[in-house]
């Protein structure tokens, strides 16, 4: 573990790139595979320079063929390699479901430990600038459902590097959930390699009146909502699960039991989703509390900004919902702020 003193400020993109470059340097079995991982855009910079340092055998461009390339990654992993399969959008993971669910998740169990699948499946959730129906989906709950898969969704540059290194070293398939709007965010990131342990939630902001759990990009919106709530005298605790499978219910339940109110905000639909899982798991532990969930509107994501802004929870709508939970007898309150955070407003795409 690095000392904090060697930390520099890195963007989420730079942190991911550094994690992969360091691990490829450490272990020759680690390789990157996926469409365009070796091109000039370098997956928004997350694979920048790797092709020059490690060559085409370890930074493999691919035919689209997501189904086969997932299976090929699983086969290579069974043989002892450590593939990082990259997808520029999470929506494309639907093409990989058969291999991930029927083989990747099950191989270690079904073959009773004779084989294991140490691979990472990276994917990016898109938002804004017309990402629309098929570039915006947060489908992590589908993977949380299946035993044998790990699912992580780091929300800052520090966790991005630590989780990526942990994912590469993990001996199981890890679904690594990124969000496009987190890419420009930055944080102090130690230079030396380090891991962020899966199954440990992070208290991102302390509070006493209500517990907000923000998944993926919604963590950022929850932190902004916390500021808005502070202006009206409400103290919100914000929790980042970091990893969704394994899921640190202990930390979330402890916070919810302390505040008596739990609002889970997912970067996905609520139906049968991560928010349902978290709320149910906390409630199963007992304790009197008021619970709520927020997520994508139960529609397909539209492209036009006028409709899209209604599709997502934002800091204001989260704050309003939290306010109603904390002060149920007050009349409804809605903070008068723009629905988009500054770095989202600055995003011009195209991807």
């Amino acid at each position, binding site marked *: 573990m690095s000392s904090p003193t060697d930390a520099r400020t890195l963007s989420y993109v730079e942190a991911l790139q550094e994690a992969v470059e360091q691990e490829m340097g450490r272990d020759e079995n680690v390789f990157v595979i996926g469409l365009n991982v070796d091109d000039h855009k370098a997956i928004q910079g997350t694979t920048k320079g790797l092709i020059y340092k490690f060559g085409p055998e370890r930074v493999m461009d691919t035919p689209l063929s997501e189904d086969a390339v997932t299976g090929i990654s699983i*086969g290579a992993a069974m043989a002892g390699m450590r593939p990082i399969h990259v997808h520029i959008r999470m929506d494309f993971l639907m093409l990989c479901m058969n291999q991930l669910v029927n083989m990747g998740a099950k191989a270690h169990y079904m073959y009773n430990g004779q084989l294991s699948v140490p691979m990472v499946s990276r994917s990016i959730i898109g938002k804004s600038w017309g990402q629309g129906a098929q570039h915006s989906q947060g489908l992590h709950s589908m993977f949380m459902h299946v035993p044998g898969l790990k699912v992580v969704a780091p929300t800052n540059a520090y966790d991005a590097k630590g989780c990526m290194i942990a994912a590469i070293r993990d001996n199981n398939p890890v679904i690594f959930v990124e969000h496009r709007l987190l890419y420009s965010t930055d944080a102090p990131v130690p230079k030396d390699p380090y891991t962020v342990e899966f199954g440990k939630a992070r208290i991102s902001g302390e509070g006493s009146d209500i517990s907000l759990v923000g998944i993926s990009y919604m963590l950022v919106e929850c932190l902004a909502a916390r500021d808005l709530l502070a202006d009206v005298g409400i103290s919100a605790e914000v929790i980042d699960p970091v990893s969704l499978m394994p899921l640190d219910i202990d930390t979330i339940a402890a916070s919810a039991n302390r505040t008596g109110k739990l609002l889970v905000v997912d970067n996905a639909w609520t139906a049968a989703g991560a928010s349902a899982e978290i709320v149910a798991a906390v409630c199963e532990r007992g304790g009197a509390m008021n619970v709520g969930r927020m997520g994508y509107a139960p529609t397909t994501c539209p492209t036009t900004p006028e409709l899209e802004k209604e599709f997502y929870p934002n800091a204001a709508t989260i704050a309003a919902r939290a306010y109603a939970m904390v002060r149920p007898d007050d009349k409804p309150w809605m903070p008068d702020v723009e629905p988009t955070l500054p770095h989202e407003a600055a995003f011009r795409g195209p991807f």
Partner: protein
Amino acid sequence: MSGNAPDLEALARVYRSLRLIRRVEEEVARIYPSDKIKSPVHLSIGQEAVAVGICDVLKPDDVMSATYRGHAGYLAKGGNLKQMMAELYGKGTGCAGGKAGSMHLVDMSANVLGMSAVVGTTIPIAAGYALALAREGKGRIAAGFMGDGATEEGVFSETLNFAALHKLPILFVCENNGFAIHSPTSHRWASDALCERVATYGIPTQEITDGNVFSIRDAAEKAVGEIRAGGGPQFMECHTYRWREHVGPNEDYDDGYRNRDDFQFWRDNDQVAQTGDMLDASDRGAIDAEIEAEISEAVDFAEQSPWPKPEELFNHVFAD
């Protein structure tokens, strides 16, 4: 018989493997109605020559992946018989501790990759293993078996393209038995020119129509030699015939989708009988006796083995 006349040692080896598979599966079929075998069985009876012909030219450290109709491949590659039988019984001593059953046999000590019940899923996995073998650079190869139905899955074409592009050391083997469960290829294929389809990827192909184990072996020997020399993937389509029902121990010639006449050619061409007839009677008798003893020992092992302990349910969900 076609194919090069084998030397006596090869003949005895091939006969032994064919006969072992046939007799193991006949024994499975015999035991099956007792409900001691708690796993759906897709018997290879009649199809043994493909697995045996291919695996006879593979080295022990080459890797083979088979389908859910995989008893033949497992045994032909040298998978442990006692552990296979225990696996079929659901016992803790099975090759996967009772978690795999007949459809997911595995024995990495013999380089038998795990099998899959989802048609076509192991095609890219074998190719991925071959990618790792290419990187390893020790001349090992993979053999990826599939049925005719698997060639209809998109992943088949995707994998052929990838394997050809990267010159992966893999032999793709299609065991074409003419049926996907009960649907004949005439219901499923616009054209039966499978090898021609594969050849468009720049992959050398061979079609073996006679079911002869030495035809298959000769073709495999040529293909494997070229693959090992760095020539990239090759493809073999081996016509064959499933003698029993799709799943289960019985015949099904009265079910209406095929009839006994269809299989007369294959019955007349039974490779177990033909290779056995080529052997000296006493040599054959000795092999047969060994096989019977081996099977008997395996069945006893399965019968007497303990069930897995309840806590095994949660073992190996995740790798450490």
